């Protein structure tokens, strides 16, 4: 988990907000309605963090979220 980077492609984000529902501690919608990661490099706080981020990325309807190790 350490070193993983979260990226949101603002040109793809459709403001669906699914990422915020799945991983509210890692994403929020900005005032432009576009998703933004709260921490671009989440630390390994809990074993479930990777799973949550993966699910948020997988559930994003437009594929705007990518995780880079």
């Amino acid at each position, binding site marked *: 988990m350490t070193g993983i980077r979260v990226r949101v492609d603002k040109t793809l984000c*459709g*403001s669906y907000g699914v990422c915020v*529902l799945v991983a509210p*501690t*890692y*994403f*929020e*919608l900005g*005032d432009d309605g576009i998703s933004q990661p709260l921490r671009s490099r989440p630390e390994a706080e809990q074993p479930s963090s990777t799973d949550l981020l993966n699910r948020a990325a997988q559930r994003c309807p*437009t594929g705007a979220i990518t995780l880079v190790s």
Partner: protein
Amino acid sequence: MQPTAVDRTASPFLADATPLTDYREVEEILGSHSVRMLRSTTELPFMHDALPLLEGLEHTARRRQLAALFRPTVLRETHDPMIREAVRRTFGRIEVPPTTASDDSTITVDACLLAQQIHVLVLARFVGLDAVWETTEGREAFERATGSINAAVSMRWSLRDPIEESASIRSDITDFTQHVLLPALRARRDRADAGAHDLLAVLARLHDSDETDWDGELIIREAVAFLAGGIQSSSNAVVDSLSEILPWLQNDSTPLDRLRDPNDDLLWRCVAESLRLHPSNPALNRIALEDFTLKTTGRRIKKGEELAVHTGLAARDPAVFGPDADEFNPFRTPIAGVPLEAWVFGSGHHACIGRALALGRRGPSGVLGIEGSVVTATRAFLNAGANQDPGSPPTYRQDTAKRVIASLRIRLNARAVRHLAAGARGQPSARTR
């Protein structure tokens, strides 16, 4: 009779579909690109090319165009104050007879009617139907059409004769379009207010843009889709929340003061928990575009297979929500990655765009950020001293396969109603329960 689950024999659109009730399968299929929505031929005339029925890139493009209406700043600065004013006006319409003018007197009202009146105003302002706010005639014309507008998007659940119902809906929507919607659209275009944050203003701007191919009919269908999607589901959510909260409040240890506090998220949790138990759409239908296998369970789906995606039953999956999943418990903590209300607003491309208007948005730490119409309206009832009338249990609609409360008689405190109608945000100083 209280239908507590989907009656598949009474819902023809689900009868031949493969039922998915496992939470993991429901979550996966809602986000899958291997399925699309199965359109209802009865609803299509009222909705075709409107956002709820679009797919793929077309859907995403429209969604991005309309997302401006749900930006946090718009929700906070435009919609939140408007929702509070809608609540104030609606409670101001309650007749408080002189004979009940003492502090402890009560008034009996139908929560269904009040919740609908609030959301008629909320959705009218959201869409841009100024006449509904400005004149009694406009409001009454809209209220008369509300039943048919709501029915236009839920015919698949209806137990009425589809031909008769469709004709009735068409007649009422035509009348509403002529007398309310088109004048409002003309006014929007004449005014050319580039900063207006309502649906008609946004659609009019798109219509006038060289980059889009909007036509007038599509504007009408899109507006009807939003009105239909917002009024009934939000009104039902308020009533369902009250139907859960009021019996729960009979327990003396329940913190009523916390529910009334707009800085406390307990009421938000109550509303979300009620939505989990009583979703507006307990099942969604999808059709497979290709052969594929669900990663979560290994279930194989064939191309062309129709799927009944039971979001309502998945929201009661004990593996996710615990052994008491059928019970109302706003202190519940689902497993990580699961919203408290599950996926009753849908997910993937067809996630409800109006969720934030109804349920608001919370900050990352769980504190309230923006309060939605359902939470605000439910709090108003509690601030008005709502008590369930013990002699009048809720009644349920018999013309739909969904569980929908038709009437919920509750008692309100007369002084608190006057207080709300005067525009005060908090509760009166004395406890009204």
